[in-house]
């Protein structure tokens, strides 16, 4: 059913009896042309674009739990393309452009809200780095504005300008950045993919990858063997574990990233703000919760939860930047597993196993990349060659040295 105000009114009059499941809860078939492992945002988006843009039909998305149960279900909902390096900007800007038309495209209101993303700077060195970044964004077709202190003050009077340990000197603003209702993205893609014939299969855990003569031919799952001509892995957080089924060691560690939401409050923070002198960023959801976060906990983890020191660190950053939130209460705090790659940038590539493709290493950039990642991964799966917007985010870059290291931290995943 197409969603619209009319359909909503019609259903209201009919007592809402006519709404059907938003996606078919499919059972696995014996064989597919393409199997996507991972029913999170990236996996569902990949399936959606394979069906919609590349005309492929016989596709399954396998999810070990319920769809959207991974990082698309627990993140801080920010979208932006304000990166430094062309390799990343091109992908994230492609993604941002897709976000801009996504809701009409998949007929689902994901509340894409381009309310602006502001990264604050507190020193001349940071200003210079943001100038370079803003220029690189412009060079790659993204929008950026370098604000001085007064420019920031015009946007956000309530920030701590006067009694700050690291006074705000200005910021880099991307007006087209913003937030999205994260769960709705998974549902919208699932619905769009399902409507186009994709089997969205929940509670189906992949337990093995069948490889014959160096070629992937199928997967073993908790619901039986499934043959596939091509297999795409989109299982951020568990990438190493699943890749190990195909005998691969990845330049990735799994880490926990915590995020926080406050009780619902009347609107106070219009956009997204990132503190440049600590680990803190914040926005406010349409329901009124302050949504904020900071750094990863910093140690390998598969536990989907973090610890107090990072909670404290994040709140210290918040109170340094905006002491007005001191009396707002943190309502919930959760942890997501993130693939931290060795250079802080994602990997979208073929593998040494023919027919096996990898989409991994998103660090904490995965949510905002969802549409772009889906599209370029669909391209890779369909055409067997990288999409032009992601043709340098390849696995062999670590061996050759063409690394994509935004922060210049080197091969130390917890520092990215």
């Amino acid at each position, binding site marked *: 059913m197409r*969603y619209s*105000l009319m359909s909503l009114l019609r259903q209201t009059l009919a007592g*809402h009896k006519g709404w*059907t499941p*938003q*996606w078919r809860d499919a059972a696995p078939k014996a064989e597919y042309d393409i199997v996507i492992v991972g029913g999170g945002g990236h996996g569902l988006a990949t399936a959606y674009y394979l069906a919609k843009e590349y005309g492929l039909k016989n596709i399954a998305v396998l999810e070990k*739990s*319920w769809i*959207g149960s991974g990082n698309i*279900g627990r993140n801080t909902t920010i979208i932006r393309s304000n990166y430094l390096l062309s390799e990343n900007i091109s992908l994230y800007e492609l993604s941002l452009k897709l976000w801009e038309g996504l809701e*009409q495209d998949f007929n689902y*209101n994901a509340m894409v*809200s381009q309310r602006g993303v502001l990264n604050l700077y507190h020193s001349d060195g940071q*200003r210079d*780095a*943001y100038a*370079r970044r*803003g*220029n690189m964004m*412009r*060079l790659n077709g993204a929008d950026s504005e*370098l604000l001085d202190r007064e420019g920031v003050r015009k946007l956000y009077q*309530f920030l701590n300008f006067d*009694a*700050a*340990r690291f006074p705000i000197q200005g910021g880099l603003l991307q007006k087209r950045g913003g937030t999205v209702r994260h*769960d709705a993205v998974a549902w919208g893609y699932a619905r769009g993919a399902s409507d186009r014939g994709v089997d969205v299969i929940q509670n189906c855990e992949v337990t093995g990858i069948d490889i014959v003569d160096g070629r992937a031919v199928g997967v073993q799952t908790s619901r039986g063997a499934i043959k596939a001509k091509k297999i795409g892995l989109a299982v951020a957080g568990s990438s190493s574990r699943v890749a190990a089924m195909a005998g691969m060691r990845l330049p990735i560690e799994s880490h926990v990233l915590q995020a926080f939401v*406050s*009780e*619902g*409050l*009347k*609107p*106070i923070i219009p956009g997204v703000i990132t503190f440049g*002198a600590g680990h803190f960023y914040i926005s406010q*959801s349409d*329901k009124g919760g302050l949504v904020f976060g900071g750094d990863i906990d910093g140690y390998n983890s598969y*536990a*989907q*939860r973090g*610890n107090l020191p990072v909670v*404290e660190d994040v*709140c210290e950053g*918040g*109170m340094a930047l905006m*002491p*007005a*939130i*001191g*009396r707002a*209460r*943190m309502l919930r705090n*959760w942890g997501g597993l993130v693939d931290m790659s060795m250079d802080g940038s994602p990997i979208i590539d073929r593998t040494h196993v023919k027919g096996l493709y990898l989409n991994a290493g998103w660090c904490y950039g995965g949510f905002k990349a969802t549409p772009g990642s889906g599209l370029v991964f669909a391209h890779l799966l369909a055409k067997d060659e990288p999409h032009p917007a992601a043709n340098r985010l390849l696995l062999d870059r670590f061996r*050759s*040295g063409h690394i994509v*290291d935004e922060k*210049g*931290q*080197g*091969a130390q995943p917890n520092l990215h």
Partner: protein
Amino acid sequence: MSISRRLASGGLIDRSKPINFTFDGKTYGGYAGDTLASALLANDTMLVGRSFKYHRPRGIFSAGPEEPNALVTLRSGARAEPNTKATTVELFDGLDASSQNCWPSPNFDLRAVHQLAGPLLNAGFYYKTFMWPAAFWEKFYEPAIRASAGLGALSGLDDPDTYEKSHAFCDLLVIGAGPAGLAAALAAGRAGARVIVAEEDFVLGGRLLSDTAQIDGVTAASWAALAEAELGTLPNVRILKRTAVFGAYDGEYGAIERVSDHLPVPPPFMPRQRLWKIVAKQCVLAAGAQERPLVFPGNDRPGIMLASALRTYANRFGVVPGQRVAIFTTSDDGWRSAFELQKAGAEIAVVVDARTDVSPEVRKLAGNAPQFLGAHVSDTSGYRRLTNITITDSAGQTRSVAVDTLGVSAGWSPSIGIATHLGGKGSWSEEKSAFLCSDTPPGMQIAGAAAAQWSLADALEHGALAGAKAASHVGLGLQAQKPILASDEASCNNPVWLFAGSRRKAFVDLQNDVTATDVALAAQEGFRSVEQLKRYTTLGMATDQGKTSNVNGLAILAGEIKKTIAETGATRARPPHVPVAIGAFAGLHSGKHFKPVRLTASHAASAAAGATFVEAGQWMRAQWFNAPGETDWLTSVTREVKAVRSSVGICDVSTLGKIALCGSDVGTFLDRVYINTFSTLPVGKVRYGVMLREDGFVMDDGTTARLSADHYVMTTTTVNAGKVMQHLEYCHQVLWPELDVQMVSVTEQWAQVAVAGPQSRELLQVLLGDAFDISNEVFPYLACAEFRVGNIPLRLFRVSFSGELAYEIAAPAGYGEALFNALMQAGKALGVTPYGTEALSVMRIEKGHVAGSELNGQTVACDLGLGRMMSVKKDYIGRTMAAREALIDPDRPTLVGLRPVDRSQRLRNGSLLFARGVTPAPDNNAGFITSTAFSPGNNHWIGLGLLARGPERHGEIIRAWDPVRSGDLELEVVDPVFVDAEGARLRA
């Protein structure tokens, strides 16, 4: 004046201490021991707010932290606290609270018009609409949604109160001081264990405060007071009242103490709240249970409350909130509430039990009140206050009963949230009709109602046993417990999850306005996982964290999808278990005190000399010195540079990292961490070194001096001091433990001042007199020495960052200020000029020295023109990876000097470089400007940049593109050394 609902006697309030407070501008009276909710109810004020989505009138629903309705803004101005649960606010004199999410008042709210659109605004409606035209979302729809979002408002003002943190260590942490918690604390405390009892309430006792049962021959509340008194006599027991444990973390528990929230304003030095981090060997979770409400049409009217809350208001606060009270229950406990209410003097109009089989002893509890078994409440009426309920009896007959208060009870849900924070899962017990937790965090036992030990006797017994076990686990021996004798009580949960009736909304989540129909719709639309249900409907995501709604919601879902509750499962509980102020997590570290401040020894002297300071990591450094009459920084900096280049200047460089390296193998060690060779460095000499990360990129640079055969001192950049120390320790302890190397940071020990300029030697001669010979012959470029003047050890290094004849002189930090002043004094005749980091930067750029903006972690030694330093005779960290194809690519951007073709133009850092005449595109970007400065010597702006094939391009005109500052310049590529290319000056 409204009616008083206060009983003439009874309760634990202190009628001798009246308290005045205001709510929505109206003044009321209460007593010490009241909560805001009990005091409002005593004043017959039931309606206190409006619901989130439909703006329906809502009344006080509970008597504790599970409250979904009675959210108020406490205090005003900068101290305003939105979304505060009236049921947990301890009444204080002058308390000022106001209702939320309604305008103009909870009695008359214009947004109540939302109710008319109710049928449209069901679960997830917004996902299906507001998409056309696309531009309208941000301009129109979203602002409208946002305007109605949230409940209370932040003031927007800085929080004026302070917060602090504290750590505690104990053998046993008891969470909750109800019967089980008190019994556990007594058992463990008597055995000698270090016990911390944390109780969220301001009185110990939990349910004991609401019960009239007898324990050991005294009333429950008296027993609680006696227990508290005994615990108070045990030096090994610490009682934390007003302290809610909010989370179990690895190895510690988090708790929040509301230190002064019950006072009008915190007294001097008293924090508003204190964050406790408690390391406990054992834990007894005795957090009790929450009564479950019932889901039936019209179940949200003011006057409908948890039955146990009515009992609490009556017995603890001496308040019966209504005149005619009905009870609707599916558990024995509802009957007991009826009994207690009657005992307190309330009129019980009717008791309705959905069960057909209720024991005669239980039925007796209702006294003479009419009873309906196998019946349910199928409708209600009354807009701002309940007026009637409709009862559908077992035969399907309906009748209306006039009541103003309805107590509901569907049994109890154990409060196991904290037990599941480390990954444990609640599992459904059919026997107990509740989620229980068996895989608790290490060392945790659950006791009392939190373990579904419903009766008082069971709670006391199991609590005592848990406390004794905990004591024995920490080696104190299992002691026999004196049995605690409590009056018996029956208890049984028989859940029925949803009652049919009128077409009115049956609410599951009272705060987020999620109805039973919403849950059904979500299931119909395929949201069949309980987590998906929560996300689609927002069930359980309100400030009560689903305490009153989760179990009902998932049970209704289970019914819809034809699964058992056990199969359906619960959502994962996340900390914090109670909402915690963000300020409390920050403690002292807010605003200016976010991070420690590090001051150099010359700070005060520099300030006196006119310094403007800048943050350099945690350090404050002098950025420039303002001379009389100077109004802009560039004038000051230019003067400072000119002074250094023409005579002499001094600059505090103490912030550079300094590491003492000792032992017989330091030379070998340094050879392995630096790309160049240090084992050949003679005693009394300094050498510049570059170290790489193992991935081949540059980590840091600096000089290392050999003070004696076995003693070197390394300098690092200010920002990398800690990182380099850690790296060196790793190299030594992990990679090469066989080497005789010892190291320790001496950054703090030495104050170090650069003395630079052609007259620096004269200045030092004045300062040192004949204490040390600094002639060029004895002390040439790159010499170093340690010597004493009197009792003061000094170090002298002939190094130069400015390119001038220069020294760095170091003294123990206690002498740092005096050293700075002595240098100023000694240089007076020479016109010595203090200079700051800006002038330092100008001179290093003029000299082509790389610094932070070039050492950005993305560059290799060759990029910086330092490739020739990379030894080919030895291994060193990073050598192998530095040889990778992309790291030796000749097309890599490499260090160049830059100057504007039009010399009047200013260069800007971060501008991107392109060949002249090309249209900027990602593929033709040739690099960027890393550093810029106005060069007083050249009298124009200069810069350093990283440019593809840079060294081959000296003389070429290129384009610097800077769209974020509307800049577009032509530059000439030149050698990066703008001053004294042959280095004659620094060797002078």
